[in-house]
């Protein structure tokens, strides 16, 4: 075999290597965007300062069973005297740490999370806008939400009548005293 042939083979090998390196991601895995994606989306809306631990646990159980993404959503309320597009730093000062706490809990259990923030004249209005923009397979809410702070019974009835998704409403249980609040954020947020 002549030196020229060896050179050509070697050069071809190098080119194939570069091409493979370019097209294949590290460790021979498919890039995350090409991997099979979880298709089911579970919405976990809240608007108060805490959510029921049972709601979170239900979301974890379902997400694990269905390989679903959990989408915790903070529903911010815009007062009537302000434009609907107004920024809400004060409410976010409460909602964002809680969103972070929920996300930490979910991720710690190996659940994929994709958070959302909804904004409307009321919690229901914010939820309606969110549902108009995106599709969710399931919605998990707790029936013990303080109607002043979050979704009340009327809102739950509205959801059952109007929302085209499976809705899981968790009844209040005597042992359901523990809630996830912003205080449970780990570390510096």
């Amino acid at each position: 075999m002549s030196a020229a042939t060896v050179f050509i083979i070697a050069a071809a090998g190098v080119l194939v290597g570069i091409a493979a390196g370019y097209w294949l991601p590290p460790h021979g895995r498919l890039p995350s965007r090409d991997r099979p994606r979880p298709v089911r989306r579970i919405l976990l809306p809240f608007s108060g300062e805490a959510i029921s631990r049972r709601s979170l646990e239900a979301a974890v159980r379902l997400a694990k069973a269905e390989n679903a993404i959990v989408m915790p959503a903070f529903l911010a309320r815009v007062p009537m005297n302000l434009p609907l597009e107004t920024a809400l730093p004060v409410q976010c000062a409460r909602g964002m740490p809680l969103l972070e706490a929920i996300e930490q809990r979910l991720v710690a259990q190996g659940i994929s999370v994709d958070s959302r923030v909804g904004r409307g004249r009321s919690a229901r209005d914010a939820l309606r806008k969110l549902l108009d923009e995106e599709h969710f397979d399931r919605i998990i809410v707790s029936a013990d939400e303080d109607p002043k702070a979050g979704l009340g019974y009327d809102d739950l009835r509205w959801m059952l009548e109007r929302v085209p998704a499976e809705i899981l409403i968790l009844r209040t249980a005597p042992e359901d005293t523990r809630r996830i609040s912003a205080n449970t954020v780990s570390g510096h947020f």
Partner: protein
Amino acid sequence: MSEEITAPAVPLTESESADRRRGRLKVFLGMAAGVGKTFRMLLEGRIELQAGHDVVIGLLETHGRAETAELAEGLPILPRMRVSYRQTVLEEMDLAAILRRAPEVCLIDELAHTNAPGTEHAKRYEDVEEILAAGIDVVSTLNVQHLESLNDHITELSGIRVRETIPDAILARADEVVLIDVTPEALLERLRAGKVYPAERIDAALNNFFKVENLAALREVALRQVAEEVGAKRLTTELVGSREESLAADAPQAVGERLLALVEPYSGAQRLVRRAWRSAQRLGAELDLLWVRPPGRRLSEDEERSLAALRQLASVLDARMLEEESDDVAAAIVDVVSRRGSTYILVGRSRPARGLGRLRVPLPQRLMERLPGVDVRIVADRSSRSSAEKP
């Protein structure tokens, strides 16, 4: 004499005053044991008592200090609860007794304390949360080294790891934080005079934790912490749904900082934006979000949704969402930084490079080289399952 630096109390709205369910938390924060936190807590209790309020001591640790015990005289003390653990009887704060007694103000020492196994909550701050939820005001004490986020930093400074920690959010949500400040020299003098620990523990303390350099570092950390609290509360009122929302947004900046968070339309970007927003709040800075979009790139359905969610989040948080089309991400960022006067850049975890991209210098490093004087911070991505599964 101790000096006090106080983070301002957040004003209550009319509706909250009328319909308040949660008690107020006041924390005396110190750099170390012996600065006078418990003393000030008791003083506060006495003032409240003299003002005609119903005050009880839920838990007091005098550590054998005569001055402290003397100050507690006359204040009602609730007996401690006895808990048996491994043939030992331990004494803990009696949460149920406090809730039954339902005073107006409860004094609870050592907020970061870990309760004995068998009690209702693992940590005392969880007990305090329940007491606050019952509408009882709480006055408590805390050393700065117990804050979770500062734990590693303080271990590095002092060489001593503190095992009892509390989440930073507890302090952040306190209605009032009062720093009890003394100079390291004054504290060491108190220690040597036997006012902090009994005689047999003084030498050990002086040789370990209580060194001037340790105390000076801790003092600096405590001062910074309270300064941050003041800054955060300055922008946060407890009002919801009134003109204060817009006033808070218009509050003048204390520091001329502007943050730039680099985002992409994927789920983890939400967390990056939240972190950036919190940092911006602490610094009293404005926040810009930047997505450098490759020319001609078509977004998938998921990416479209993520982008819409990012825009919504930016709008709610009062951040400006910028979108630039460029092949050269670093150049586009440099351009935006110079246009917007950004002083701080937050980036998320980069996607694994492919092909020749592996040979390229990582983006944060390129930014640091091209933008001297601009801080670059990498924010961890916790929102994907793959990252959660890493050891």
